[in-house]
């Protein structure tokens, strides 16, 4: 069994699965139930001066029959008295000494930061997380993402925290910035040892078209909220990786956040540089119980890959994240459609026709019919194969790929509803590996057929 214990800035946590600062960590009772379910740590719902919330608070996006592909909220930090939260945190830490308790903090002035850091540390919290990410409500008062989007302010408050804190400090970053490296580098300058990201993305969830009010609706109005859930995972992976491959930021411990719903998501974040991961939406959707599968799944995965600990997985995929200019222009993939699995829906055909390079054909057509359908290139060889889908409706036609024309874009595979029916197969291109940057170095980075002005400038320079 692989070791799931992690070391996060010197704090040992039973596993990398932490609850993010959010409604699931609102009270001591909740956090204790979460720890009983198996969560390794919890970032308490952000402490500060109590606030007032509105109704309603959440908005969701469904995709087809799948609910909550994305969730947004306009809830603020904790609305409970500070003393109540501190008392419960102390109690949680007393009862669960080995679990990781993180205090999320958000206040304004230096004095306030000093006081709240002292009070939070008094509870026995293992780590502090500075909430510089919340993109709704609090940012209008100069806190949350207003800090995260302003590197100088972030750096200054981070310095205060480093001055007052005894335990390691995490800076939680907002994705609502042009360049994530700016706040990341500001945190490095302040001496911060850890980052967590992403906080939620500024969003409006939709519009109630009968009332002409955006969602979620509070009476006759709405406001921008923070977007999270599975839909933001790709955005989070990108922003986090930008930091983890940065020479300085990459040395910090990172707690990955953003749409993590299962062990695979977690493994991906860890492979791209996270030490721990934080989860919120999946728990708000399905409850604390999901952590059982996360623990077991990650452990099995590490065993299968022959890795003894989470730390061995950490950052493994970072080197493969490169600039476009470094990608191999000679690499070639071709789509293959398995005629035994095809059900004849022809979604690949229409996707390729209208959304890609018109290289998937329906057999049984004459050249004239093919041209009428929109094909400009007729394959020389029509494959001699069955045209009736074995797995599908009798008479359904199994499309085939013109391999000469296929650009290997993946689209057909992405739209195919049948698992493993369309596969992308490597074919030797017969060309040596060459990237665009190689061409730049050789001076062959020019593709004819463009603008006259570009061509003229090119001639002048050569």
């Amino acid at each position, binding site marked *: 069994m692989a070791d799931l214990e992690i070391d996060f800035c010197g704090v040992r946590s039973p596993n990398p699965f932490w609850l993010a600062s959010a409604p699931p960590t609102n009270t001591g009772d909740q956090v204790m139930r979460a720890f009983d379910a198996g969560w390794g740590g919890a970032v308490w719902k952000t402490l500060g001066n109590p606030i007032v919330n509105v109704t309603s608070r959440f908005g969701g996006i469904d995709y*087809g*029959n799948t609910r909550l592909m994305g969730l947004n909220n306009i809830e603020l930090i904790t609305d409970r008295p500070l003393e109540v939260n501190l008392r419960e945190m102390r109690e949680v830490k007393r009862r669960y000494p080995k679990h990781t308790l993180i205090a999320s903090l958000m206040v304004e002035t230096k004095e306030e930061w000093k006081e709240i850091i002292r009070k939070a540390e008094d509870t026995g919290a293992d780590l502090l997380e500075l909430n510089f990410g919340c993109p709704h409500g609090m940012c209008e008062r100069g806190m949350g993402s207003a800090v995260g989007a302003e590197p100088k302010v972030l750096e200054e408050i981070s310095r205060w925290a480093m001055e007052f804190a005894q335990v390691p400090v995490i800076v939680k970053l907002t994705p609502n910035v042009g360049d994530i490296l700016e706040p990341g580098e500001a945190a490095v300058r302040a001496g911060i040892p850890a980052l967590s990201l992403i906080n939620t993305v500024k969003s409006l969830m939709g519009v109630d078209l009968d009332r002409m009010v955006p969602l979620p609706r509070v009476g006759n109005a709405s406001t921008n909220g923070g977007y999270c859930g599975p839909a933001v995972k790709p955005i989070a992976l990108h922003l986090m990786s930008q930091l983890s491959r940065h020479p300085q930021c990459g040395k910090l411990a990172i707690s990955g956040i953003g749409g993590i719903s299962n062990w695979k998501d977690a493994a991906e974040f860890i492979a791209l540089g996270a030490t721990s991961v934080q989860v919120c939406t999946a728990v708000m959707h399905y409850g604390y119980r999901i952590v059982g599968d996360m623990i077991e799944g990650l452990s099995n995965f590490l065993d299968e890959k022959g890795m003894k600990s989470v730390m061995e997985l950490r950052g493994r995929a970072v080197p493969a994240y490169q600039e476009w200019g470094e990608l191999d222009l000679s690499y070639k993939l071709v789509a293959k459609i398995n005629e035994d699995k095809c059900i004849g*829906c022809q979604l690949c*055909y229409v996707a390729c026709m209208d959304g890609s390079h018109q290289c998937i054909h329906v057999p049984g057509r004459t050249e004239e019919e093919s041209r009428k359908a929109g094909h400009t290139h007729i394959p020389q060889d029509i494959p001699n194969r069955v045209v009736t889908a074995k797995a599908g409706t009798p*008479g359904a036609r199994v499309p085939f790929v013109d391999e000469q024309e296929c650009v290997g874009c993946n689209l057909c595979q992405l739209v195919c509803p*049948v698992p493993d029916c369309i596969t992308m197969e490597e074919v030797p291109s017969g060309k040596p590996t060459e990237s665009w940057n190689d061409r730049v170095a050789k001076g062959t980075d020019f593709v004819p057929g463009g603008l006259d002005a570009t061509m003229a400038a090119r001639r002048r320079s050569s």
Partner: protein
Amino acid sequence: MRVMQPKRFELPPGRAEEGFKDKKPLYTQGEAVAEANRCLYCVDAPCIKACPTAINIPEFIRKIGTGNLKGAARTILTANILGQSCAQVCPVEVLCAGSCVYTGWGREPIHIGRLQRYAVENTLAKTPDLFQAKAPTGKRIALVGSGPASIAAAGMLALEGHTCIIYERKAIPGGLNSLGIAPYKLKSPEALKELEWVFSLGRIELRTGVEVVEQAKGPGQVSTSELIASHDAVFLGLGLGADSKLGVPGEEGDGVLGATHLIERIKTEPGLTLQGVKRAMVVGGGNTALDIAHELALLGVEVDMVYRRSEKEMGGYVHELDGARLDGVRLVENRQPVELVRKDGKVVGVKLATTRDGKTVPGTEELVPVELVCMAIGQERATGVARAFPGVELDSRGRVKVDAATHRTGNAKVWSGGDCVNGGKEVVNAVAEAKIAVRDIQRHLAGA
């Protein structure tokens, strides 16, 4: 200009059919959207090809999914003007849903019929004004019979601006749609409501209680020559005739009913009871036999369905037999009644003989006690009316002969479609044939 008053057709309360529950009730919005979202939105979809009226099924399902219900209904009704009743009565298991790619993949097919019902029923209830008839052309078309073929043809012709006059022998219009569909699929008032909607599309006049005959002898009759002379075109949607008889001793008298006759009574007759009937025997192996057997079982009667060949050879759909069996119908294969036994005039039993290759084997008779026998071995052809039109020919099986591409009969002014042409198929086939006929009538009226 004479504007037709919208007609309301009402049936008396207390009909047996009112007690039947829908086997496939109207979806709620949540159910419909969830089901619509399952559809793959296939290209060149097999479900469209399996639909005799070629409804663009993936298109209307997608519209349901996006909340464009009116658009969904328009897609359906443009291809099939009787989209409401077809949604409820179509054997989707052997048509669209049967050819759904999910079916071949071993997964649950999309419930296309129920989605279609959801779109059409809700849209027609809220915004029935989906179509606008063209300006009046002054052309008059007579339609004989008011079953699905005639109603569909009349609706489409009315939208083209023509005036349609429907001649119906019975008091209640709608033919099999209002009188012959199993009530757990479609009840008479539902069929009549759809018919009222079709009538609202344009100039459609209904004359009930009128018989079309060779020589009219008084009121309530109109002669074929007059019909042809006073109209620009005639459409024959005659349907089928009375239930066929077996021709065995004891068949005449109380306790023996034709299947379509009994279904009509269940659907329209107030206070019909089956008192004293504990056991019934249905004779036949087609879908009408399955319908009446299923209906009797749902009315609490013990039903034996007797078929002279094996289950494999039955004309009725497998899914209908499965449904009937679930509700208690027992299929007795390879048997044939040879005599109906009566006591004091009342049916008390049926003598059944074993059959081999559909023929009775002597000496194998057994007596099965029943109180009611229902004949579902086919229907006579409505040959009389068709023959009364000069030039209209019938084939050897009594079906009206038409040109398949135009549905025009041997008389250049007469077209035909529906059961009287195809020998008894689905409502959707009647609509498909009406579409072909209407297209040709249009060509004819345009002087082509």
